[in-house]
């Protein structure tokens, strides 16, 4: 655990969960209220919701310059904003042996924990109850996990921040924050997943100057199909009840992620009233490939028969997945 400066913090999150803002408020507290010097920044990409994002804080004495601008690869404090991120090797990579890990984890979760000094908080449950976002709850847990963070000073910064919008919002966020602080459970996990060694800041990419096609051309069409976007969902997923489905195809028009799985049945036979038999093509919706579904629920909005419904994310998703390929 970080008990003296310098120390480094890394937040692992998904765009839209508010990790960047949380890190910013924490760093502001450390600099403007606690008199440290700090730098804070996030991984840089285009402004997309649902894609992995990392935020970093370096902390040192007020009068020591911070000159390094590359990402934090060996954090003293590592906060994971979504349990699904634990599946990625890079999420936990480089956590210092004496470091602390804060995980947003549903109380009922059975997912194995990494071998580390952990603080567990069910930030989603708190946020749902308080009608706020998970980032303030996680900040509470982080404040508890690090003795060098003045929890009251951070609360004051939070209050200032939200007071500007509405006092109700400020109150709800403060409550979320302190609940995160109080409800975070400290545990020392001795048998679990090993913390991977740090990823180099400059890991070699797959293609190199001897192997990459000239000019940056990509010669494998459609290779993005290997991506897994399931971490983009924020708590909900569409569920298909086939018994209610009329296979009308309206959902397919509005799905931006092309993840509905259809089966074309080339020939079926129908008998008309005049007893004439004719061939006809049929197509049926057979399921959803949750590897690509980002949980926008536009299909649910559009479904005229109630076959698609909004459901809390759970282990059913894996069972219900119908792969496109």
């Amino acid at each position, binding site marked *: 655990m970080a008990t003296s400066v310098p120390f480094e913090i890394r937040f692992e999150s998904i765009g839209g969960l508010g990790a960047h803002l949380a890190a910013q408020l924490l760093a*502001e507290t450390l*600099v*403007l209220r606690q008199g440290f010097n700090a*730098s*804070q*920044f996030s991984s*840089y*990409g*285009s*402004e*997309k*919701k*649902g*894609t992995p994002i990392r935020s970093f804080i370096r902390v040192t004495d007020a009068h020591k310059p911070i*000159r*390094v*601008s*590359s990402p934090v690869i060996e954090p003293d404090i590592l906060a994971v904003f979504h349990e699904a991120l634990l599946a990625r090797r890079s999420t936990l990579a480089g956590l210092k042996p004496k470091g602390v890990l804060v995980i947003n984890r549903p109380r009922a979760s059975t997912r194995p924990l990494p071998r580390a000094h952990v603080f567990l908080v069910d930030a989603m449950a708190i946020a749902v109850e308080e009608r706020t976002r998970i980032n303030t709850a996680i900040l509470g847990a982080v404040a508890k996990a690090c003795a060098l963070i003045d929890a009251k000073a951070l609360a004051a910064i939070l209050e200032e921040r939200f007071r500007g919008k509405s006092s109700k919002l400020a109150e709800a966020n403060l409550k979320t924050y302190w609940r995160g602080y109080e409800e975070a459970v400290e545990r020392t996990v001795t048998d679990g997943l090993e913390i991977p060694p740090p990823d180099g800041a*400059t890991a070699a*990419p*797959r*293609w*190199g*100057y*001897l*192997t*990459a096609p000239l000019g*940056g051309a*990509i010669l*494998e*069409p*459609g*290779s*993005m*199909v*290997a*991506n897994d*976007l399931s971490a*983009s969902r924020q708590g909900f997923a569409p569920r298909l009840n086939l018994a209610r489905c009329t296979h*009308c*195809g*309206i959902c397919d*028009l*509005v*799905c*931006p*992620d*092309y993840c509905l799985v*259809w*089966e074309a049945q080339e020939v079926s036979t129908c008998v008309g009233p005049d007893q004439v038999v004719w061939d006809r093509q049929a*197509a049926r919706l057979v399921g959803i490939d949750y*590897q*690509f579904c*980002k*949980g*926008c*629920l*536009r299909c649910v*909005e*559009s479904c005229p028969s109630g076959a698609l419904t909004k459901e809390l994310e759970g282990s059913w998703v894996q069972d219900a997945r119908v792969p496109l390929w």
Partner: protein
Amino acid sequence: MVRQLHAKRRTLATVSAPPLVSQKVEFLSGNELAALAASQINFHLMGYYPITPSTEVVEQLSRMKAQGQHQIAMVPAEGEHSAAGICYGASTGGGRVLNVTSSQGLLYALEQLPVQSGTRFPMVLNVATRAINGPLNIRCDHSDLYFALNTGWIILLAKDPQAVYDMNLLAVRIGEHPRLRLPVLVAYDGFFTSHQKRRVHVFDSAVVRAFIGKPAPPFTALDPDRPVTIGPYMNDPDLINNKYQLKLAFDAAAEVIPDIFKEFAALSGRRYRSVERYAMERADAALVLLNSAAETAKEAADLLRHQGLRVGVVSLSVLRPFPAAQLREALRGVKAVMIGDRADSYGAGGGNLSLEVRAALQEERTRPRCLSRIYGLGGKDFTVEDAVELTRQAFASLKAPRRIPSFDYLGATPGAPATVDGHDRDGKVAPLPLTVEEVSRHHAQLMQDPVTNRLTVTLDPLWKMAPTPHRVTPGHGACPGCGAFTTIKQFFRILDGPVIVLYQTGCAMVVTTGYPATAHRVTYLHNLFQNGAATLSGLVEMYHERVRRGELPGVEDPTFVMVSGDGGMDIGLGAALGAAVRNPRMIILEYDNEGYMNTGSQLSYSTPMGHQTSTSPTGSNSFGKSFHHRDTPQLFAAAGAAYVFTAAEGFPEDLMKKAAKAQWYAKQEGFVYGKVLSACPLNWMAPDDSVATVLQAAVDCGFFPLYEVERGKTVITYDPEALGRKRPAQEWLGLMGKTKHLLTPETSSVVAAFEAEVDRRWRRLKAKHEHPEL
């Protein structure tokens, strides 16, 4: 004459410096500090076009202005070329002018830069440095900055956020100095400095105002009593003298800048030097680097000095004028100099910094061994370990000069042998390439009406279309609920036969082509933001020429489609209208989500009046965007396009029918343009699963009429009035977070102005619909 004018003016440098003033501690990023400095300077005007990573400066300034914190006239251009033009024009008017840009923005504005300096109008341009295309990269290197080296601008370098603030204040003083009268570029590292927050010290605005003084131009374009001809036609006997004046100004700058730095140090306690030295006492080796990388190298120097290696770091605060003499002094006695460039001057044997350092050292009697390395391209991190490695190579070159190359790259990787054949997909298999037959399912049947000559379309039932594979794979990284991909799906599903696409810079481009993966299953191109239509029309012409020469079979012509956001149709409108006039057989499909959403929602010319974006925020002094959305389809109709249509992804059948017509016209007659209203739940601030309602309301309130212009004949394809579905704009505006502020009584006049414009356009459209000749 110029000298006489100058002689009349009191030089600001003689103003006695106030004593060290108290400053406030803040926690801000480079971009935030550039904005703060600008607000305190209170420039008269800023012409801009947003580009990552400099956009935040504009966003900050827009927010501050909405809250009444400064009075800078903020002028949103439709591209950087115009932004630079706006700035130039404004600067001739005697006030202070600001611009910020990065990467392609700097290159697109480049031709304006020598005009600014050659006609001697000071202004300040911040450049958050970023790699230049192509392929497109949004992260830091200095390949943009190096293009500005020959433009006649003073170039100040800001190594960290504090320096961004300081250099912006200094830039005003330096550029306006009567001996100089030069534009000043302040360069800081994109993301590393632009986006990293640091503990910094800032002045009170009054201190800033006192330090910069008042602008005192020798003449302006806004003084009717003293008419002046600016920018004459100047031929050979004279131009060389104009340029010699510029040269003399740079000679003077070498003297003036250190003086102003000194004065600033007395005020702030922060002493800048043209050449900064770190740990250079009796150094055997020196690393010469710019900006954030030099900062990182200082950590390495500390580490290595501790181990007994005598290594130091030399960096520059001023790149133009190049401080050659101070550099020689700083490097005197050093045995090995390692010069790192964050951009190559291809074929020159080193980057520009490297070449200039080597040139400067030519005048030394004993010259150190010089090594040049290219590092950190496209945002590749420069770490302490990298700096240690550069030092190691510098020392090694003293022992075995032949073994260490004089010029090389640091950090390029050859690639793993397993990927040589291009088939290693980490065990995952890509779908087979799409065959034309698989996607050509003839879901639309076209007939020509013998009376009206118009095409009529019959669509397959939806269930029949659903199993047809897409030309884009799932796995793309768009936000949940993204309407661009619904638009693309509905449109392309109808197209038969081979298709070749070009995506303009924007969301759909970025999220489908993150190297080394692509979501495209058909051939895809990307070119510059403003140039897509020209590029695709070039490919179309090449196709037909190669068919004519018998080099391609020409059995079934591909359908050429450019996909663009509404942002691409701002900066790229010129090229697109140019193409429309030439009438190549291609389609432009615009997904209009009412703003520059790829970069975090800045206003576009398609953003409706009153809507809130990050460059049209709401506040006590702002109600959102101040001018109307452009009626783009009418421009293309006027340009004589064969087929023009509007559609909304919430009206799929209408959209798909128009897709079928678009393909027919693009294959038979020529140019097609279509604008499709596409949801952006994130930046519209609407729930992902409410967009159907929002789209319906947008169309029903008349904001987005659905119609087509077929061979010049306008036909409204969905008439909310006739269907009894017309409703007030408020019903639409109330559905989105970005427009909720328009429901208050204070903004009712904005909504009234918006509705009046929408109604005016609707009445004209109806007239065109009704009258055969309109």
